[in-house]
């Protein structure tokens, strides 16, 4: 299993559209992918799980990924978050 803490940097945070992008991306991997935030542990392939986190800009989340493609999954998700979910700000 690999773990990494990442900061949410897009202005709107993990709002609905960003959450959907994350879930769609996570679902492409076989690994089990979790997002830890405060006392929540969300399954990154479940839209409700991810949206209920309501993680705003500036918050830090921890990704926990386990599976054969964990490294690829981490790289892809980290890129999505750092690219601000392809949003302009």
């Amino acid at each position: 299993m690999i773990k990494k803490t990442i900061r949410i940097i897009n202005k709107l945070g993990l709002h609905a559209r960003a959450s959907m992008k994350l879930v769609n991306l996570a679902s492409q991997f076989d690994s089990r992918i979790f997002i830890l935030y405060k006392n929540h542990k969300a399954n990154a392939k479940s839209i409700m799980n991810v949206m209920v986190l309501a993680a705003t800009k500036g918050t830090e989340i921890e990704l926990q990924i386990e599976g054969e493609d964990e490294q690829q999954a981490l790289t892809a998700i980290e890129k999505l978050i750092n690219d601000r979910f392809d949003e302009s700000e």
Partner: protein
Amino acid sequence: MTTQMIHGNMLVIKDCGVLIRGRENMGKSELALALIDRGHKLVCDDCVELIVEKNKLIGQCPKINNQFIHINGIGVIYVTELFGENSFIEKHPLQLAITLVKPEEMPLPDNLLTPCYEKLVLCDIEIPNIIFPAVGDRSLPLLIETLVRSHLLKLAGRSPSDLFHERLSEMMRAKNDKEDN
């Protein structure tokens, strides 16, 4: 008056005329039967006759299979005899299409909070067409009834996904404000 025949099953679900489309063996007739069993009305099984009246798209049933459904293994079912007069309606405006597809044929979802809406033009009239993944072990009758009710809620100005977005935005705003102070 021109009529057009279309392959599919038409039902009236909560006063909404719904055309259920999909390839053969997707279980359209069985779904229609289950929806009748849930109290909805059959317009036509398998080959719906479309007409336009006062610029409205209307679906009706050819005389020959009027009130009948065909199910493999049972044969023809006389719907009104088995489910009562209220299980059938002669004709009804057609307002919505639902196309059943295999999950692997679903377009990539760009919005997970709403159904996959496309458009369908029949007799030069455009109606919404929801593409729906029909997986074998899903409870289709319940899902299709819920899909139609949710669609009607949206038409009534209370889109469930909009209401959800509002709630989420509100909570995230409140969180931001709290952190700013």
